[in-house]
């Protein structure tokens, strides 16, 4: 076994601090696959210390003020990719609409990590356990990818391609996350299971639903750490849609979720554990969202 020294960064690299998106895109165009963007560095520097990657150029995007913002306008909540987690937490605590995102943000890392790490960094690392992913997936979020050649907007669902793999080209920058507005009658929740208090998820789940009295008008489910990418559950949720919700229906949905996911055994859990827990976690998260949707706002 090769041991690495996580106290130092072994290889030197060139470092750039652009002040605008344009400058960053120019640098990315020039250095492309030899370069990495660095935002909070809480994933990237750990990967570099572990010698998983060793980019020869780092482009720090934290001086680009146009990449750090949270704006609610015209049917969308827009969050700049370089917005730090503590800012997302503070916004969601006041806004109180995007409950699943709030719960995911609060559970992400520890204080120090939320003070440095960014929402874009969490998505771009593309860990199957990225806590923001299930919450953003159930809200049908999309991301804006920008390069010197132009920009494109893709559904978050299509962004993840595998463990640490995304659909982003080497010269692209994620500039923005866009979440459709929440309307009355919607409720959402996020929960994760960890070994100890503040930790990476063994399994995570988010639900966003619309309720009309006892009827579930719509229901979106997403899970983390149950497949090679954060995953939308597209079969099990149909069990409750358009139906009068009761305990046995939700029980059935839990069973179906266990079948639909595709977990592996790794250092955090076994596949069997994940399948069994998925059913229970889904039920808990569903009921939380359901009760919230029933509350008057």
């Amino acid at each position, binding site marked *: 076994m090769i041991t690495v020294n996580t*106290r130092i960064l072994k290889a*030197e*690299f060139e470092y750039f601090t652009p002040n605008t998106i344009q400058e960053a895109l120019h640098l990315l165009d020039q250095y492309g696959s030899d370069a990495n963007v660095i935002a909070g*560095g809480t994933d990237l520097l750990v990967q570099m210390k572990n010698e998983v990657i060793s980019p020869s150029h780092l482009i720090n995007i*934290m001086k680009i003020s146009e990449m750090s913002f949270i704006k609610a306008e015209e049917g969308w909540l827009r969050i700049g990719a370089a917005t730090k987690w503590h800012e997302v937490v503070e916004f969601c605590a006041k806004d109180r609409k995007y409950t699943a995102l709030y719960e995911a943000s609060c559970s992400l890392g*520890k*204080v*120090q*990590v939320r003070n440095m790490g960014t929402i874009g960094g969490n998505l771009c690392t593309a860990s199957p356990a990225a806590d923001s992913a299930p919450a953003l997936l159930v809200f049908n979020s999309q991301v804006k990818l920008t390069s010197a050649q132009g920009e494109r907007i893709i559904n978050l669902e299509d962004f993840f391609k595998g463990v640490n793999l995304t659909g982003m080209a080497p010269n692209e920058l994620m500039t923005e996350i866009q979440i459709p507005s929440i309307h009355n009658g919607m409720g959402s929740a996020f929960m994760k299971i960890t070994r100890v*208090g503040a930790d990476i998820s063994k399994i995570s789940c988010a639900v966003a639903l619309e309720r009309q009295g006892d009827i579930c008008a719509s229901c979106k489910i997403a899970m983390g750490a149950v497949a090679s990418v954060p995953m939308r559950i597209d079969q099990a949720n149909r069990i409750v849609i358009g139906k009068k919700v009761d305990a046995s229906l939700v029980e059935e949905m839990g069973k179906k979720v266990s079948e639909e996911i595709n977990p592996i055994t790794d250092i955090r859990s076994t596949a069997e554990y994940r399948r069994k827990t998925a059913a229970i976690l889904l039920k808990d998260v569903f009921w939380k969202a359901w009760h919230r949707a029933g509350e008057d706002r």
Partner: protein
Amino acid sequence: MKTYLIEIKLNGEWQKAEVTAKETLLEVLRNKLGATEVKNGCGKGDCGSCAVIFNGKAVNSCLTLALQANGKEVTTLKGIGTEDRPHPLQKSFVQHGAIQCGFCTAGMIVSAKALLDRNSKPSRDVIREAISGNLCRCTGYKKIINAIQGGALESKL
């Protein structure tokens, strides 16, 4: 090797250091600016022994590049209080027996100070959350939480 001259406002005083891109803030604080009160633990964000207050927020200096700190304010344990003029939090840690080997203490007090700057009367749960990124292998945390509560009361007097 390309070097950069950076300036950091360390505990209220501007200090210069010559660094290369791969040096972390932690390495520069300890090896070039004499701030050995900042401890070098895991190196990957897990233990919090390297915590400093960076622009008003607690962060891990092991996961911050020195270049990212250029032109910024950094407060370490010694900026909070010294042996001659200890901060109420530091006195409270001693009084409550919240220190055993002491390796985690600098980071704990930094996290606690960042908390008290925002919330002068935190509940035990809020304190727990604020030090969730700081591991202590000796004390079992109870005395640390007591000490932070005690320090909060004293700070207000």
